[in-house]
């Protein structure tokens, strides 16, 4: 595998000013603070974290939609700056969270999907129209949808339009910023399946920004966990879920209620709220909420270090934490599982008879 995207020490600080005319800087919001990661071709890296952890800012920094304070972004071996930016903006596309806000309400779907091709001077009006039809089919919409306006579509369909637009210029990397968070569960599953299907078909890489660990578990190859502007743990998906080594990752996992009443009462809340990124705590930023915090954590900021090949953690005590009790591999209840299998079979049979693949 070759590296497609390499991000080094990406940093974004926002000055906080007070006063009207002679505004003085009174502080700094450290939205993203020294984030590094790489994405190989064809893989999905998920960045997870709670609101305000800087995951969306990171996505925008990669695209240069905002200027970083420091750090470098290398795409396909080339540093992104100046002239390289235009190529980057074709080869990297983005799908946003809110399908209601990210489509122009005055443009027909055909124009929305064709716009990136126009911007990059790809094809003729006729070839673009043909491509729009093809793209609509790819994302499970019908050709006649091209002449409609966004308000005529449901949230899930709008997200499909957003995905078609992103695909229009044949990108290699798609940044998905919470692409399914605004959708109902049944629609969320449709869009997740579509994204996975498109990845297999076109060898796409994804930078998948999400707060829902269950969706990440389904989508990602590797996972980076962010807290207050920094990556605190990063590893292959299996390692993060089966053997998390940072207390925050464990807290996140323990907070998810499982769709299974046999596991009731296993949700373990940790105290407190995420501190303000303007005044991050000294030392380890998680120490104010960490159940394992010791004096050293208040004084010294832990650096991200590799504790096993491919598994990095920013915790002084990663090696001496009590062993992680992974969620029991119960799986779904037997009768329910049997009926789900029947459901899957019946669904597959019905879908075979269709003209266009509804994914």
């Amino acid at each position, binding site marked *: 595998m070759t590296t497609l995207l390499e991000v080094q020490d990406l940093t974004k600080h926002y000055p906080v000013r007070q006063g009207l005319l002679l505004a003085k800087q009174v502080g700094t919001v450290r939205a993203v603070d020294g984030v590094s990661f790489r994405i190989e071709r064809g893989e999905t890296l998920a960045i997870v974290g709670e609101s305000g952890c800087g995951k969306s800012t990171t996505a925008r920094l990669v695209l240069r939609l905002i200027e970083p304070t420091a750090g470098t972004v290398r795409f396909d071996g080339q540093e992104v700056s100046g002239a390289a930016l235009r190529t980057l903006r074709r080869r990297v596309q983005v799908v946003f969270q809110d399908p209601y806000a990210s489509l122009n309400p005055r443009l027909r779907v055909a124009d929305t999907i064709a716009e990136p091709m126009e911007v990059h001077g790809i094809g003729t009006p006729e070839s673009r129209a043909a491509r729009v039809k093809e793209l609509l089919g790819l994302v499970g919409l019908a050709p006649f949808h091209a002449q409609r306006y966004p308000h005529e579509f449901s949230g899930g369909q709008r997200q499909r339009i957003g995905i078609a637009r992103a695909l229009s210029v044949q990108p290699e990397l798609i940044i998905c910023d919470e692409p399914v968070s605004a959708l109902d569960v049944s629609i969320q599953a449709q869009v997740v399946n579509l994204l*996975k299907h498109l990845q297999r078909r076109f060898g796409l890489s994804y930078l998948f920004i999400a707060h829902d660990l269950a969706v990440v578990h389904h989508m990602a190859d590797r996972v980076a966990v962010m807290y207050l502007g920094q990556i605190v743990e990063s590893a292959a998906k299996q390692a993060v879920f089966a053997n998390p080594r940072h207390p925050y990752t464990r*807290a996140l996992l323990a907070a998810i209620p499982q*769709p299974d009443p046999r596991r009731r009462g296993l949700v373990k809340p940790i105290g407190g709220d995420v501190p303000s990124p303007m005044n991050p705590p000294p030392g380890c930023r998680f120490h104010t909420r960490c159940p394992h915090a010791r004096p050293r954590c208040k004084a010294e900021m832990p650096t991200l270090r590799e504790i096993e090949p491919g598994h990095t953690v920013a915790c002084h005590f990663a090696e001496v934490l009590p062993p992680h009790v992974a969620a029991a591999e119960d799986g779904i209840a037997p009768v329910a599982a049997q009926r789900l299998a029947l459901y899957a079979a019946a669904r597959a049979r019905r879908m075979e008879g269709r003209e266009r693949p509804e994914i």
Partner: protein
Amino acid sequence: MTPLLEIQGLRTVFRSANGDIPAVDGVDLVVPRGKTLGIVGESGCGKSMLSLSVMRLVPRPGRVAAGRVLLEGRNLLDLSPAEMRQVRGGQVAMIFQEPMTSLNPVHPIGLQIMEAMRAHDTRAGQKELRERAIAALDRVRIPAPARRFDEFPHQLSGGMRQRVMIAMALACRPKLLIADEPTTALDVTVQAQILDLLGDLQAETGMSIVLITHDLGVIAEMADEVAVMYAGRIAERASATELFASPQHPYTLGLLGSVPRLDEAREELLAIEGAVPPPFALPKGCRFAPRCPFAIAACTTAPPPLEEVAPGHFAACIRAPVENSLDIAA
């Protein structure tokens, strides 16, 4: 003993040029004392309209067209507006998804809690109410409640605001708390805190909770009884243990298949095809039939009745249990 709340044949409609559009269409539910009833369904299934109907807060041009809402045997739909105001906040309280829009931004949170208390207790003095408001903040585990009393909603985090809403809702010790997506807008670690708090408060006060959510995880964690709603009707109703162990309705199966699980690796999620039908274009028979992989011609002629498929377990599906419907489906 009569159950705390019993809903019978509730039908809530919205008037339109083309006749009445049903948002809730013939719902029967029981909320036992001291227990939690979870109502699960996707947007547009009528779960919020159902709770607003119980509170008689359906926005115009909607109205409750039929049915009874019995709180300890008393039909809330027959009460005068003044009597209903005493029920709201007094015996039945409600919390919503977005605490920021439910709180008044220009008043300190303490005064807002006092206001709720004063509405139901006109005799208590200012000082006593203040003390009780501080105690209410303390009960929902807000640190330094006396200091927080004078803070404004924008000074609080999302989780703290939801705690204030809960404090306000529980100010008059209601017997029933209706929580409409109380943790949907919150981060997962904060959600865990709020769910934990609700569980503790229920154990403390013995109140019943109606928990409305789209999250099957929250249902599995919190609910004793579960009702699955689809397009204004109950698709399936059972105890939480029974529902997850032996789901009967294909819609319930579809929901379970759509949720990615941490304890299972599946290449593809079992998404439900299509989308929820809008209330003005509902299919004739079973409303789930157009999306159901088990649907047959009979499903599209008449709405399926909600039938008891096992003791205490009801499903509105003529094809349930699905293992008996295989030969015909193929």
